[in-house]
């Protein structure tokens, strides 16, 4: 593998991910790896929901990896697994090259101080009866250690300044209901930073905010990423924001990663039929009045039928490709056998049997012909 020299441990992670080198790898050293991670939920007697299946990726210091998918695709479960909120059913997580075992309390604490999670809804994630100071004081004290006699106040002010809640003394005594949505989300960021993490998992951090504020928040996250060399996982349903914000994009469908690649390349020339559908469905301001003229993207089988319920993450534990019921290119093999990720270039792979039809241009651009041989 060409990128094996980039960082320790890369090789083993890469071996399971269709042999690609993450576009985020150039940003800094390897921080967190998910290797063949899976999560099953028992939904009833003899019924199992495979929420996340065989997911592998790596986060690098200073790099942003976006996990894109629709609701029910398993992207939030993946974040909760990485954050240690859920136990893995299969697979392994490694932090700085060390396998992580969260069953011991101390190890769990140590892990949590390194890997922090930010939630989507800043109203639900802050306690309405406590002030900003209270929310930040506990993580700051935990970080300082119980024996520290140092007052937490100065540290809290620094945190608030880092998330641009200034002047800090104006915000420190406020309750969540006194803050706007954007300000509340900044407090969530500050709380995550209080532990001085190396990894930040952001689960739809801007989707609840107004459009005019989203960009500022993403720019703040970008600033924090650079300043603290954070390895960031950006979970979103908005593939356009991933294009701007992430180095690498992973597209998730029904619990699996179906395509991955550098953000710009993947969004401009999607290879997997699902990614193509996702990109074609995003609002397109340049397609003025397109819907009125009936000139939207060609209607898509499965998407257009309306009556059909969209698949939830791995609900039908069928052997075939999870996208095959909606895929216009599906053939017998797709319904029988789930495709493994195939490398389409040094940094891109897609899990599809019919890439030669779905994305001939992307395949043509690949280096050498070794990737097509399975």
């Amino acid at each position, binding site marked *: 593998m060409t990128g094996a020299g980039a960082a320790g441990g890369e090789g083993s992670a890469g071996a399971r991910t269709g042999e690609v080198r993450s576009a985020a790898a150039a940003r800094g050293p390897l921080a967190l790896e998910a290797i063949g991670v899976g999560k099953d939920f028992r939904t009833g007697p003899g019924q199992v929901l495979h929420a996340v299946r065989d997911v592998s990726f790596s986060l690098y210091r200073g790099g*942003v990896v976006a996990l894109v998918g*629709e*609701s029910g695709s398993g992207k939030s479960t993946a974040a909760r697994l990485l954050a240690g909120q859920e136990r893995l059913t299969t697979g392994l997580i490694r932090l700085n090259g060390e396998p992580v075992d969260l069953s011991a309390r101390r190890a769990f604490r140590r892990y949590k101080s390194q890997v922090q999670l930010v939630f989507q809804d800043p109203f639900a994630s802050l306690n309405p009866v406590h002030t900003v100071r209270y929310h930040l004081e506990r993580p700051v004290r935990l970080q300082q250690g119980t024996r520290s006699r140092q007052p937490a106040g100065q540290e809290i002010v620094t945190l608030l300044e880092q998330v641009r809640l200034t002047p800090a003394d104006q915000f420190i005594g406020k309750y969540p209901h006194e803050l*706007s*949505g*954007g*300000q509340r989300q900044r407090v969530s960021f500050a709380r995550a930073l209080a532990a001085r993490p190396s990894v930040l998992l952001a689960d739809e951090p801007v989707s609840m905010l*107004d*459009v*005019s*504020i*989203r*960009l*500022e928040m*993403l*720019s703040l996250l*970008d*600033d924090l990423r650079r300043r603290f060399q954070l390895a960031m996982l950006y979970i979103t*349903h*908005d*593939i*356009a*924001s991933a*294009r*701007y*914000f*992430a*180095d690498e994009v992973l597209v998730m469908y029904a619990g699996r990663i179906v395509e991955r690649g550098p953000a*710009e390349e993947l*969004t401009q020339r999607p290879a997997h039929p699902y990614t193509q*559908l*996702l*990109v*074609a*469905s*995003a*609002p*397109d*301001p*340049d*397609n*003025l*009045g*397109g*819907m*009125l003229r*009936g000139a*939207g*993207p060609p*209607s*898509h089988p499965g*998407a*257009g*039928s*309306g*009556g059909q*319920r*969209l698949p939830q993450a791995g609900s039908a534990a069928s052997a075939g490709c999870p996208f095959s019921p909606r895929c216009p290119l599906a053939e017998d093999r797709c319904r029988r056998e789930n495709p493994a990720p195939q490398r389409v270039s040094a940094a891109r792979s897609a899990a599809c049997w019919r890439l030669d039809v779905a994305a001939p241009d992307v395949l043509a651009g690949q280096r050498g012909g070794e990737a097509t041989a399975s």
Partner: protein
Amino acid sequence: MTDLREPASGPVLEIRDFSVAYRTQAGDVRAVDHVGIDMNRGEVVGLVGESGSGKSTLAYGAARLLRPPALITSGAVIYHGRRTERSADILRLTPDELKHLRWREIAMVFQSAMNALNPVLSVRSQLVDVIRVHLRVSRNEAEDRAAQLLDLVGIPRARLKSYPHELSGGMRQRVMIAMALATGPEIVIMDEPTTALDVVVQRDILAQIVELKEDLRFSILFITHDLSLLLELADRIAVMYAGKLLEIGSAQAIQHEASHPYTKGLLNSFPSLRGQRRELAGIPGSPPDLRNPPPGCPFLPRCGYGRDDCTRVSMTLAPVTGAAGLGHVTACPFVGPGTPAHPVPAGTEGVTS
């Protein structure tokens, strides 16, 4: 069902000088402040604004769906229906007349279908209910109509027996649309009908809405915070901020000749998937407190073009100078389409990576 394919010109709804205040102990919150806009027959009017801008209050207020502490403090809402004999000011209707107007003439699609549908009634009984309350038809006729409505929105008839929790989010929203169309209304107010849905489903439902509109000839007031969606969907777009309309224009005019600094800022706020990567700026700051609105332009504190005169502008909509189309109006007398893009105030930078 009355045929609505008759005359197809002139406004179907005129909102004039309309104001709504929320009466609180700390004083009135002027949620909608002297707003005027027309809706033409068969037109899709997009109303875009951030949360708290008053866009939903405007639409619900115009249909008189607000309850105290909301108070309509000024204005008129003139409805010109093809089935009604003469035009009527909705704000002056008696409760009986109002009952006839609602749903029969003006229907709504609410954002959260899960909350708007009754969880313990089947799709059939909810549709039949709506039809029988507003149209004088027999139970059998109503059942037939319910089945036809599901055909219309692309849901198999077998789903009549389903309960809301058995449907996906997209299907629930389709049921909501079917319900809104049940009585053949002239105007359908859609309040963020697809915001909670995935993009693939969203596009699919919007395409269906447009198709239905072409067939059934109703007008749509489409409320959303997503300007990028409106550029594709709407005929005309009205931009609302802090209870006031800042700019109205055709989708084309808004995209290519945006005049108001806020509209310019919004256009520069969403990352686009296609074309060149642009330098994005966003809009720093947050909207003003409407209990105590600043004098003049409410956007001034966040505006990159602000000047002293801005505290004294009257906030009336005037034609954009040099605009290609008539009907492109803006509340900002100082900045026009030609003024260079939103200058980024110090201390903020665009997203780059």
